[in-house]
């Protein structure tokens, strides 16, 4: 029961993007299409799970004074693996994500989970925590990307939803659209939270 909670908390209650506002750079930058969003989410989830497992295995060997450089080194190794694997198997996706794949290293979610969770908990729990946070992160990007792709191109996952005569709202896939979409979504979430609070 408790193990499942470690997994589910990252998806809604402690969603890294909407609730904790971590790792915003890739969320806004790659959410121009749902396909990019899935790619980025999968890459980040892989790194998050692997680094959480490794750091929780190594937690007794890493001296606490130099722990941050050690974590960064572990994370950077996994990011390099993802970077090379994507370049080999999905070159178009690798190209459209660009420098945001190496930049997963400095994504605050991953270092944050290593510091706050994996360095204090067991391997299995850390793995579930990483998986949950990764899925939460992926869902958040997919939600934002769906809105932007729908308004900006009229498609979702390259499947046309709106008729071809729809005049796309180009601003939605340009940078301003990203900021305004996430601002409105966060506002919506806090309306829901306020309602919940006033009920309780």
């Amino acid at each position, binding site marked *: 029961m408790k193990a499942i909670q470690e997994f589910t908390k990252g998806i809604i209650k402690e969603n890294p993007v909407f609730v904790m*506002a*971590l790792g*915003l*750079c*890739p969320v*806004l*930058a790659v959410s121009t299409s749902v396909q990019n969003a899935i790619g980025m989410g999968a890459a980040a989830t892989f790194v998050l799970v692997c680094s959480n497992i490794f750091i929780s295995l190594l937690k007794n060997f890493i001296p606490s004074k130099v722990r*941050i*450089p050690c974590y*960064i*080194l572990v994370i*950077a*190794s996994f*990011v*390099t693996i993802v*970077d*090379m694997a994507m370049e080999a198997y999905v070159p178009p996706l690798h190209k459209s994500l*660009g*420098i945001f794949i*190496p*930049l997963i*290293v*400095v*994504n*605050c979610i991953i*270092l944050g989970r290593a510091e706050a969770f994996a360095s204090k908990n067991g391997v299995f729990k850390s793995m579930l925590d990483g998986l949950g946070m990764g899925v939460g992160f992926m869902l958040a990007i997919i939600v934002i990307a769906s809105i932007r792709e729908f308004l900006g191109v009229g498609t979702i996952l390259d499947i046309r939803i709106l008729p071809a005569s729809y005049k796309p709202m180009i*601003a939605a896939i*340009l*940078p*301003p*659209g*990203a*900021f*305004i979409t*996430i*601002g*409105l979504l*966060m*506002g*919506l979430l*806090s*309306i829901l939270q*306020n309602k919940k609070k006033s009920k309780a």
Partner: protein
Amino acid sequence: MDFSTLFIIIIGSIFVNNFVIHRFLGLCPYIGVSKKMDSAFGMGMAVIFVMTMASTITWLIYTFFLNKATSIFGIDLTFLRTIAFILSIAVLVQFVEMVIKKAAPELYKALGIYLPLITTNCAVLGVSLLNINENYNFIESIVNGAAAGVGFTLVLVLMAGIRERLEYSKVPKSMKGMPISFIVAGCMALAFLGFSGMKF
């Protein structure tokens, strides 16, 4: 030395491809440290300094150690790019912090708390990677690093100015804090889109 190329890089990095607004790099400090003008300015200065230094050092490391054609070892180590860059940036920031603490205590007091935060600022790693991707030479890399820092400071200070005013204005309860900041950032991005029409 061709000064017009340098000029284009400077204008490009400050206005057209602004790191925060256009490339979505360094959003955490952009939202996190933009509540007060003083701290925004301090953070901006620290970022300009570190970005210039980081561009210099990572360019040297890439050219003399990693890139096969110019490396002193003559082997291809480009896959180590991410790890080498993030480690050298972390070491650099630590070193800069120690030097400033000894040499200029006044400056350290002003910048002190912002320096450690910069290691995980994705804009610093981003500018290092972009310099390599764009095939900039040594001088161009340094100039690009400094210009990117200036662009970052510009939008950070603008944002801090707007947010100081926002404190006194009537914002709907659920939009307070983060959501309204993102909407403001969106408006700023719309304004900056005007620069993207500039062609040289």
